[in-house]
């Protein structure tokens, strides 16, 4: 299999490259590594867009109705440099939509999943390379539609990233809800198609294409996490896709799935109606709650690999880690109602969802203890990827614990729709996932491009991101405890929230600092791409299969047939001299291979 694949479309490094060759190698490539890198750069660019939108939100919350210096007059000349309230609702809607659907989900599954899965399981490529290429190119209609939506009349979607009807379902219910909302729905349908193609591919590849000796329980945690994530995607996405189509039909054809009968919004008749706004919330969260795990599980997997590598010690409790990821995936399907405690859903149902939600905190706790167990008794190397991984654990503890507050239904009555929720989601998705992504970029960059990133600047980037991140988001817990509501263009005309403006100004200054520190990251990537020191196959002395390939790996990945003899975390094994033990390294003469490979109890 490996040999034929190399023969079929190899020779990427040929000197005289025609345009067709260039296109098929770097643009419409079938190679999972190129596709992964395409995903990486596309999502990083959207990361910039999403970040700038967030800074717009922060500006308004710190200095409402004040002219934005320099760029204000360019952006909103009509309002004389101010952010109009309808523009503000668009800012936070698009910030969340871009970050979730164009950054976090595709950067984990699309970029890291694509790049790492075949390399880490010892395959020459994905099971379905064409499908893989399409999964990237189906993101482009989404990118284009979403970009276009900023320029249509009324602007981009402003109904919140959750797009709750009737606000979202009725064209003209608000300035928010014009053509931009329909484009938003279509864009998300394309993202869904892309994710679905990816997840089918990942499942098949992981089940079918593992190298000889790579049993399921010898797979690195990254792969386990990608596998479970793919299953989650495959089961949850159809529900979202159906819901998106229904909302689209509501808007364009007046089907009224989510619109009750007989009422008028903004002097617009609403058509037949007969629907239920809560139906959307159930369908939306039936996908979007599992999606929360789609946005964190792969990060957990990557962090597990990095922590074991830089602690020079086997991952603590490999199997319990696998079981807890599976547990999260299973429970993840029966907790969606905790987003709806205040929605008017039957409150008795709220109790049931509280119970299942409390229980889903358990696997996360188990994982945290196992990460701590991994660094216990190891030899910790404080590299940039390790610092980001440790930050992941430290921040995930906060994000996980704050989740218990909102899982408790009586407390949720008070903190629901306040900044407590905003703090929680950012501790999980920025303090958690984004930290893991930063770490992952520093860790696998040498494999992707054959050059190391600059460690010193990496640490400066880490320090600034870590400090400013906490400055930005920790204080939001305090805002939330004060009842400070989300999504208000000007909260300060309420007496209850008047005194919170100085704290919001502090948060905004930290957020600007956090944004600026990412310039160091961008600079480091660009510099290292061209001038970073070249590296060998295994710069981190890690165990997993991707480190046995050349950096960067050629088409077909492996220049030998990998055979796997043991699990991925045999650091400091007494069997060998070095403190690492590649999965492909044959056991020394006389050693009992079988015994050494099973995870010991």
């Amino acid at each position, binding site marked *: 299999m490996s040999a034929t694949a190399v023969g079929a479309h190899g020779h990427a490094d040929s000197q005289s490259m025609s345009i067709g060759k260039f296109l098929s190698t770097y643009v419409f490539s079938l190679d999972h590594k190129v596709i992964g890198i395409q995903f990486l750069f596309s999502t990083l660019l959207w990361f910039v867009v999403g970040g700038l939108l967030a800074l717009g939100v922060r500006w308004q919350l710190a200095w409402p109705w004040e002219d934005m210096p320099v760029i204000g007059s360019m952006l909103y000349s009509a309002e004389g440099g101010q952010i109009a309230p309808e523009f503000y609702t668009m800012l936070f809607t698009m910030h969340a939509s871009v970050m979730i659907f164009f950054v976090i989900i595709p950067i984990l599954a699309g970029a890291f999943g694509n790049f790492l899965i075949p390399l880490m399981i010892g395959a020459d490529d994905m099971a379905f390379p064409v499908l893989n290429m399409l999964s990237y190119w189906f993101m482009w209609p989404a990118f284009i539609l979403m970009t276009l939506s900023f320029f249509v009349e009324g602007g981009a979607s402003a109904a919140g990233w959750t797009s709750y009807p009737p606000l979202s379902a009725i064209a003209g219910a608000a300035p928010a809800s014009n053509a931009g909302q329909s484009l938003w729905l279509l864009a998300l349908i394309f993202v869904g198609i892309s994710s679905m193609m990816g997840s089918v591919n990942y499942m098949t590849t992981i089940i079918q294409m593992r190298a000889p000796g790579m049993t399921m329980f010898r797979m690195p945690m990254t792969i386990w996490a990608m596998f479970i994530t793919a299953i989650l995607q495959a089961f949850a996405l159809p529900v979202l896709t159906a819901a998106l189509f229904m909302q689209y039909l509501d808007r364009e054809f007046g089907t009224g799935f989510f619109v009750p009968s007989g009422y008028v919004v903004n002097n617009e008749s609403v058509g037949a109606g007969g629907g239920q706004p*809560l139906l959307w919330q159930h369908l939306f969260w039936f996908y979007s709650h599992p999606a929360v795990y789609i946005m964190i599980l792969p990060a957990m997997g990557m962090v597990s690999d990095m922590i074991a590598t830089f602690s020079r010690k086997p991952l603590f*409790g490999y199997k319990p880690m696998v079981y807890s990821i599976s547990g999260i995936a299973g429970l993840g399907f029966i907790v969606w109602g905790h987003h709806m405690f205040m929605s008017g859903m039957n409150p008795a149902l709220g109790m049931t969802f509280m119970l299942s939600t409390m229980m889903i905190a358990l696997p996360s706790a188990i994982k945290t203890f196992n990460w701590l167990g991994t660094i*216990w008794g190891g030899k910790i190397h404080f590299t940039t990827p390790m610092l980001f991984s440790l930050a992941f654990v430290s921040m995930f503890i906060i994000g996980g614990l704050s989740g218990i507050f909102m899982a408790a239904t009586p407390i949720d009555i008070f903190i629901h729709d306040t900044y407590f929720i905003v703090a929680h989601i950012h501790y999980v998705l920025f303090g958690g996932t984004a930290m893991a992504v930063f770490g992952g970029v520093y860790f696998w960059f040498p494999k992707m491009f054959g050059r190391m990133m600059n460690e010193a600047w990496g640490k400066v980037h880490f320090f600034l991101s870590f400090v400013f991140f906490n400055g930005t988001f920790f204080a939001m817990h305090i805002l939330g405890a004060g009842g400070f509501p989300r999504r208000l263009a000007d909260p300060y005309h309420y007496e209850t929230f008047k005194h919170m403006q100085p704290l919001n100004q502090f948060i905004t200054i930290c957020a600007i600092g956090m944004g600026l520190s990412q310039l160091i990251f961008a600079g480091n990537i660009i510099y290292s791409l061209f001038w970073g020191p070249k590296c060998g196959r295994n710069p981190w002395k890690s165990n997993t299969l991707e480190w046995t390939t050349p950096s960067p790996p050629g088409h077909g990945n492996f220049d030998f047939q990998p055979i796997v003899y043991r699990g991925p975390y045999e650091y400091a094994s007494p069997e060998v001299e070095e403190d690492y033990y590649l999965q492909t390294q044959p056991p020394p003469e006389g050693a009992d291979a079988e015994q050494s490979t099973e995870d010991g109890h």
Partner: protein
Amino acid sequence: MNRFWTILFLLVPILGVATFALAPVYGHWLPDDFSERGVNIDRLYYFILYLTGAVFVVTEVVMFWFMWKYDATKTDEPTKFTHGSHKLEIIWTIVPAATLLFIALYQMNAWADAKIDKPDMVPTCKVVARQFEWRIQYPGPDNELDTPDDIYAPPNEMHVPVNEEILIHLESDDVLHSFFLPNFRVKQDAVPGSMIPVWFRATEENEYDLVCAELCGWGHYKMKGRLTVESREEFDAWLADQARDNMATQETVSQDSEDQ
């Protein structure tokens, strides 16, 4: 340099606890609570705050300690070549599981009290949310809502008597809204097409903010109401005033229509 990073991680629990300890000193904390059920909610909030706070401090400090002790450039200990511990896994599965189960069961009464055990009484008023205001309507002399003698308050003005059970019928005219009284720990989404009951009991006379807490369009931020809690006598007098005003308006309206 490794020590620097380790201490940076130690700052997380130190500054974290300090932030929560100092916030009330600077006036940033739960808004004052003037309701009976809110006391329960606050008590549960503190219970979970102390519990998670303890877990937070312990795990973060343990993490710091491991980073300090097992720094590769400082430690002489040989690496512990272990793949895990059955005993530890069982302990740290069962203890959190039991704790979480306890938390969940412990919350249920307060939740039932706030959202399930609806008081059996004539509703105090009906609140209809619409873009971007609150309309409040009181039953007239017949003590029934949605009859011709209903009394309409001016938009965004809600009055309730102190120390009495208040039952509200919450509805929406257009999109989703959320009826949020921060000082009473009351929040409930208003859903078009449904009537949702909301109840509370205010314990102190004053004026309070009524906040819309669910995105309802561009004017969401300005959908602000005022809740006045007053004595039964003041409330009755205010309601009688409103009834008179309503009557006067109706007469002008009917005169206008006769003129046409």
